[in-house]
């Protein structure tokens, strides 16, 4: 079936694969055929009939026009897309489609970019022969992201197919029959899937449009600027639509190797956070507890004076993993030039014992597109749909194609594909991994051998093990996610993962926590990595060691200490004890207000040029689309001036591209698929809370970073998994005598918070899930660690 055949379309010879649909061949050849229901990434419905063409095969004409989207090509096929017969059929279809479509283009948000409008220009009549009443369909509230005008729907069912096939949840359906058929949820619930915004792009008419963008601009007023999404590690290719220096909306750009044609809702609506009213618009200094605006030169001189005067060993730089490559590189240059090696970006990690054994650049270990061709995947510590929505889609494709997916997690995931889930406390996660390792006869260091020796593999473990072994190196992978990274024994998880991979003969992949986590290793934003991901001879302190209260001067770049650090309460204490804290941020917030002494406003996403390195090591450079507000400046420019002010050499960059190429030269020899550990790690398990409760602090999808947390439309999405509460298994709650809504005092270490109970059987026994990154969690300790719950006596 791989032999190519030649068909003829409009007199042109076209090469095609047997079984391909006519429309796919025509699209490749640049021959346009009108269509509404066909979409290359969705199943074929052939229900709009707009793509009718005239055809003949082997000299015998088809008796009537055939739909190009549902007619496979064969030998001797001849197609005419513009013949009188084809045009007549297309015009006929168009007339029927327009019968019930309102002629309200001037007040329709899709006007100017509407497929129906475009095709009607080509095929529509100028007079309607339809004199009856048009159909009217009641609108449905699909939530804060998608606006509906269902009267305009032409029932192409792209949105229904997208929900079923790509999103994997059937939230939308076509109910009713004939003229009464309508698209909706039928019961009027909000659409909550993390990829739901794609139906806005798919809808060929103005039935489903973007609610935040609605009625704010016309498409012809917008200029498109290419960008890269700043949230998860995929680096989705996006196009920013800008009008008068404002980002009006975000659309995906096709890139088969990265995001196909989709983007997650976080990438689509995150831009709204740029408009939040707590933007930092001028440098500010705190004097006796009161914040006061100051000029840039005063601010930078103050910062330079404090950094020069500080002991480099007592200075630390904490950098957000979604800062640009240029920012990270320049920041670490300044730090290292001043003699300070305390630089880190792994803000939500607490166990750093394996630093010396870690791969030089932990990446996905395989091209993103290859994830969907895996035959066996062991997913360790990742709520993947929330962490990496589009990688989850790739994983789903693999699972639906028959891959064995096994998850080892401290909570049961809502997955939209078949998978076996081993759910247990963080301590049990180690046991589960050890059991899988034992099934594979894996061996390692002595601590590891003890753990593996004590394991008791069950059938589920053996199945996961044999699936990995059978699939082999190219088609099996062990993936480590963000929940694994917050684990108190992350070192051991990594050792176990590598032991499993070695014994099964498969690969290990790291799911990067943020848009530039991989880039941070390349830029040297790591205590043990010099630029170019070269190991350092004099490693500095990791995040945990920087926040143990011993540092006097700290620089925080692009994050909020009360939301983005693994131990919010511990960080607040350490930052409180520090003598001087410089925060470079696009936003203000209670955490920064109390922790920092000097705040420098930098440009957020889309306000700076830069480079992100995605999960598989692809460098993606982008330009700034809008200027930062007020006095804020792009981060790399701030650092350039700062470097010059500190009299450091080599800060005479003309533009960001020069910074990037300097780093790129250093990274010429980096290997992006070598995730093998560099040595043994003899970490002993800390036995996280084998007795008592362990907190599971997952990061909800819309709490990931400062920008997402400020996007008003995303914050309105009803996400059951995102509310700040303590989620307990019903049996666990019953054991402790708590019911739903019970007010508790949750304590970690010295401090705690009053919090209500929600029953959730996705949380294992022995665990209390309290999401991280949400308001209310400032006084809690490590995202994953011991916690005690006590009923509040007099609420």
């Amino acid at each position: 079936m791989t032999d190519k055949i030649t068909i003829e379309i409009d007199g042109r010879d076209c090469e095609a694969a047997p079984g391909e649909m006519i429309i796919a061949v025509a699209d490749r050849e640049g021959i346009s055929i009108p269509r509404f229901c066909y979409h290359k990434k969705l199943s074929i419905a052939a229900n709009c009939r707009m793509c009718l063409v005239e055809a003949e095969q082997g000299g015998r004409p088809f008796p009537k026009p055939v739909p190009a989207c549902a007619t496979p090509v064969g030998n001797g096929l001849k197609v005419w897309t513009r013949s009188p017969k084809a045009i007549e059929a297309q015009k006929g279809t168009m007339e029927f489609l327009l019968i019930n479509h309102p002629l309200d283009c001037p007040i329709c948000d899709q006007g100017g970019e509407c497929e129906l409008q475009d095709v009607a220009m080509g095929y529509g009549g100028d007079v309607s022969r339809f004199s009856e009443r048009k159909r009217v369909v009641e609108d449905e509230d699909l939530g804060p992201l998608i606006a509906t005008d269902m009267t305009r729907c032409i029932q192409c069912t792209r949105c229904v197919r997208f929900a079923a096939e790509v999103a994997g949840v059937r939230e939308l359906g076509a109910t009713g029959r004939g003229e009464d058929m309508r698209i909706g949820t039928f019961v009027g619930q909000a659409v909550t899937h993390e990829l739901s915004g794609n139906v806005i792009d798919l809808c060929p008419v103005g039935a489903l449009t973007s609610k935040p963008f609605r009625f704010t601009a016309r498409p012809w007023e917008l200029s498109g600027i290419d960008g890269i999404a700043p949230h998860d590690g995929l680096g989705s290719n996006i196009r920013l639509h800008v009008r008068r220096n404002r980002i009006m909306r975000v659309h995906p750009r096709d890139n088969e190797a990265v995001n196909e044609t989709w983007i997650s809702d976080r990438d689509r609506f995150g831009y709204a956070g740029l408009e939040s009213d707590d933007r930092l618009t001028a440098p500010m200094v705190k004097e006796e507890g009161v914040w006061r605006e100051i000029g840039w030169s005063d601010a930078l001189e103050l910062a330079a004076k404090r950094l020069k005067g500080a002991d480099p060993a007592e200075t630390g730089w904490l950098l957000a993993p979604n800062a640009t490559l240029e920012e990270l590189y320049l920041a670490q240059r300044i730090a290292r030039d001043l003699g300070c090696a305390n630089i880190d970006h792994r803000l939500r990690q607490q166990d750093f014992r394996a630093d010396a054994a870690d791969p030089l650049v932990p990446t996905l270990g395989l091209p993103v597109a290859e994830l969907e061709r895996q035959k066996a995947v062991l997913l360790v510590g990742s709520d993947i749909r929330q962490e990496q929505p589009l990688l989850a889609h790739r994983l789903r494709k693999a699972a639906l194609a028959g891959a064995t997916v096994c998850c080892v997690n401290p909570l049961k995931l809502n997955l939209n594909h078949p998978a076996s889930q081993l759910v247990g406390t963080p301590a049990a996660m180690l046991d589960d991994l050890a059991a899988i390792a034992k099934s594979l006869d894996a061996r390692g260091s002595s601590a590891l051998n003890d753990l593996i020796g004590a394991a008791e593999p069950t059938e589920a473990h053996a199945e996961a093990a044999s699936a990995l072994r059978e699939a082999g190196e190219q088609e099996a992978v062990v993936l480590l996610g963000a929940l694994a990274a917050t684990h108190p024994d992350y070192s051991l998880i990594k050792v176990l993962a590598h032991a499993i991979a070695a014994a099964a003969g498969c690969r290990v992949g790291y799911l990067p926590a943020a848009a530039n986590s991989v880039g941070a290793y390349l830029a040297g934003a790591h205590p043990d990595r010099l630029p170019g991901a070269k190991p350092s001879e004099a490693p500095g302190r990791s995040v945990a060691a920087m926040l143990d209260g011993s540092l006097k001067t700290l620089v925080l770049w692009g994050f909020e200490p009360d939301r983005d650090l693994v131990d919010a309460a511990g960080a607040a204490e350490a930052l409180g004890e520090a003598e001087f804290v410089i925060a470079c941020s696009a936003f203000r917030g209670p955490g920064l207000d109390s922790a920092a002494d000097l705040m420098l406003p930098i440009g957020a996403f889309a306000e700076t040029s830069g480079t992100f390195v995605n999960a598989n090591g692809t460098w993606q450079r982008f330009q700034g689309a809008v200027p930062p507000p007020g006095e804020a400046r792009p981060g790399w420019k701030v650092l350039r001036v700062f470097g010059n002010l500190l009299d450091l050499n080599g800060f005479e960059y003309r533009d960001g591209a020069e910074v990037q190429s300097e780093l790129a030269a250093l990274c010429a020899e980096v290997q992006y698929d070598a995730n093998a550990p560099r040595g043994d790690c003899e970490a002993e398990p800390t036995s996280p809370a084998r007795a008592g409760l362990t907190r599971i602090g997952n990061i909800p999808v819309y709490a990931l970073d400062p920008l997402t947390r400020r996007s008003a439309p995303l914050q309105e999405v009803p996400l059951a998994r995102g509310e700040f509460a303590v989620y307990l298994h019903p049996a666990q709650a019953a054991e402790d005598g708590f019911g739903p809504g019970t007010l508790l005092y949750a304590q970690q270490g010295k401090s705690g918070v009053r919090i209500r109970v929600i029953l959730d059987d996705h949380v294992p026994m022995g665990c209390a899930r309290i999401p991280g990154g949400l308001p209310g969690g400032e006084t809690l300790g490590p995202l994953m660690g011991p916690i005690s719950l006590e009923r509040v006596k007099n609420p």
Partner: protein
Amino acid sequence: MSFRNAPVAVDHERDKTTLFTPEIRAAIDAHIAKYPPEWKQSAVMPALTIVQDANGGWLTTELMDDVAAYLDMPQVSVYEVASFYGMYDLEPQGRHKVCVCNSISCLLQGSEALIEHIEHKYGVGPGETTADGRFTFKEVECLGACRHAPVVLLDKSYHEDLTPESLDKLIDELE
């Protein structure tokens, strides 16, 4: 519509032994047994019929959700089926259903006269129930008995070659 990855199975995480009565479950199970296990959603139509009959001739959203849970299928798929076919009713119905065919053969053979007759004599339009709750009058698509048009489906039985008079007799016999 075709789904590339059909059918989507959804575990609603409900205890199936608490859904419906044992008799209804047994009746649905008899239909599920006709299909391969991964295609048990195919039993959705008989399941809806059984559940509707046990509920006085109509389906609530909760009952449709129960059917979805019982067959491990998305709720909206059940709504699609139930709202598409004329034999499922999503509102309370009279004690009986008088379903007059309004498709081409019956129309040519006088079903319009039957419809007008019912409207005038009993004071109900299509989809409405008589004041005494005796029957609900429905217009339905082709009943597939064209050669004896016009046809009326009265509850579960077909009545052919009807005139307003013979239809009256049938309705008079209803409780």
